[in-house]
């Protein structure tokens, strides 16, 4: 019998598989959909799933599959943008405060605490109500609202690493601070960071869906999973497929990325 060096993590495999399939569908949705996702047809209102319309049609006769494919793309773009904005700022703030400490840490972390005192979705709502609705504004608002949570995780990890002997050794060799921060320490906190980013991604997906559901995210006629759920609510009895398919898509996206994050931590966590 062949012995495996390291048992494969179930979460990693399952998460990668589900995320992979979702990624393919999302990329597909950017370039192709069976029908125009915005084309309405009065004769095709609320038709159940059939060979012509695999996921059925909505209250305006639009093809639900086409709207799910393009809507998942919008949701993904907003969530990914949120992670890029929140993650980049969070890493920089967390790294600087965790490594240098002192007044810089005190100052930035108090601002961070003030921001973190609001639930992040509420904070994003405040920003949206000032800047107005729209896909990219939601992305920016959620990105800013997510900075404190990332900054705190990264800061904690850097504070732990700063005292490690290999960092002291790098200082003695004369490695400049930026290189110690981002070349020596950052790879060591990657497992913790990645799993926190995947959790953040999921929260961003749900937050975007929630905001679109409230009508302040992606604006009609553009599709987004949250918007579709919100519109389907009225027709739940007559056309449950309008809610079920976007809902299942949303759940799979969040579940896949969540399991992948867990798997990454399982598989690459220790490192020593």
């Amino acid at each position, binding site marked *: 019998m062949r012995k495996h060096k390291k048992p494969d993590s179930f979460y990693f495999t399952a998460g990668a598989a589900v995320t992979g399939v979702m990624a393919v569908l999302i990329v597909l949705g950017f370039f192709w959909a069976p029908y125009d996702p915005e084309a309405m047809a009065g004769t095709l209102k609320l038709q159940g799933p059939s060979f012509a319309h695999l996921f059925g049609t909505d209250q305006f006769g639009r093809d639900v599959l086409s709207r799910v494919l393009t809507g998942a793309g919008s949701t993904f773009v907003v969530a990914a943008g949120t992670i890029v904005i929140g993650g980049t700022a969070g890493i920089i703030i967390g790294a600087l405060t965790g490594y240098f400490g002192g007044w810089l840490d005190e100052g930035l972390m108090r601002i961070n605490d003030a921001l973190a005192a609001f639930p992040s979705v509420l904070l994003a709502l405040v920003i949206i109500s000032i800047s107005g609705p729209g896909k990219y504004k939601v992305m920016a608002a959620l990105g800013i609202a997510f900075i404190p949570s990332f900054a705190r995780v990264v800061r904690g990890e850097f504070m732990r690493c700063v005292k490690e*002997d*290999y960092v*002291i050794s790098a*200082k*003695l060799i004369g*490695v400049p601070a930026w290189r110690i921060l981002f070349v020596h320490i950052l790879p060591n906190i990657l497992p913790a960071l990645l799993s926190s980013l995947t959790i953040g991604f999921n929260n961003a997906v749900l937050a975007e869906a929630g905001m679109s559901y409230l009508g302040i995210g992606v604006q009609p006629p553009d599709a987004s999973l949250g918007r579709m759920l919100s519109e389907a609510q009225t027709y739940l009895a007559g056309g449950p497929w309008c809610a079920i398919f976007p809902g299942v898509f949303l759940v799979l996206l969040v579940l896949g990325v969540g399991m992948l994050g867990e798997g990454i931590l399982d598989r690459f966590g220790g490192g020593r």
Partner: protein
Amino acid sequence: MENKVMELKHVNVYYREGRKKKQVLEDISFSVYEGEIVGLAGESGSGKSTLCKCALGLLKEYDGEILHYTKRPQMIFQDPYKSLNPRKKVGWILEEPLKLERKYIKTQRREAVEEMLSKVHLPEEFYDKYPRELSGGQRQRISIALALLTGTKLILADEPLSALDVTVQAQMIRLLRELQEKERIAYLFVSHDLDVISMLCSRVLFLKDRKVTEYENL
């Protein structure tokens, strides 16, 4: 006497406790010369590690003079399992001081590192290994190689043998001796173990009640 590599003149070291300053070392003066091994002994908590950190320039709360007559001294740590970056390969770790000098290309750096590996009696293949694949003694040799690659003539060794088993300790002592003779490396050797100190060192500094007393070889 030969060339000095480090000199401490009337050094006082303090720790801050809130707004109060607490003195931990008082009027420390001594020199280390090229190619000699100086022992540093004392009870735990007497300030041996603090003295090392201070001599390396890692502490800010001190007065007096600390003079280095060589490139910045390097340190070998007590715990070999924490002193090398776990995410980087040995080759990458050892090339770091050469990268900072910005005058070597990749192949030159690799050659220099492989030459250094053979000086500390490790095979060239270690270049592509991660620290987690090495034993404690092998890791300590990598730490020594890293210190030497910076071009320093002084190494501060903070109980470098205490985490190793006895046979590996003996090998390490041989290596330290060999480098002392061939490369004229000086060591400030911190240890609890007076047997090791008497075997290795020409002079011993004892730390007691914040002050240092110097003895010729025991």
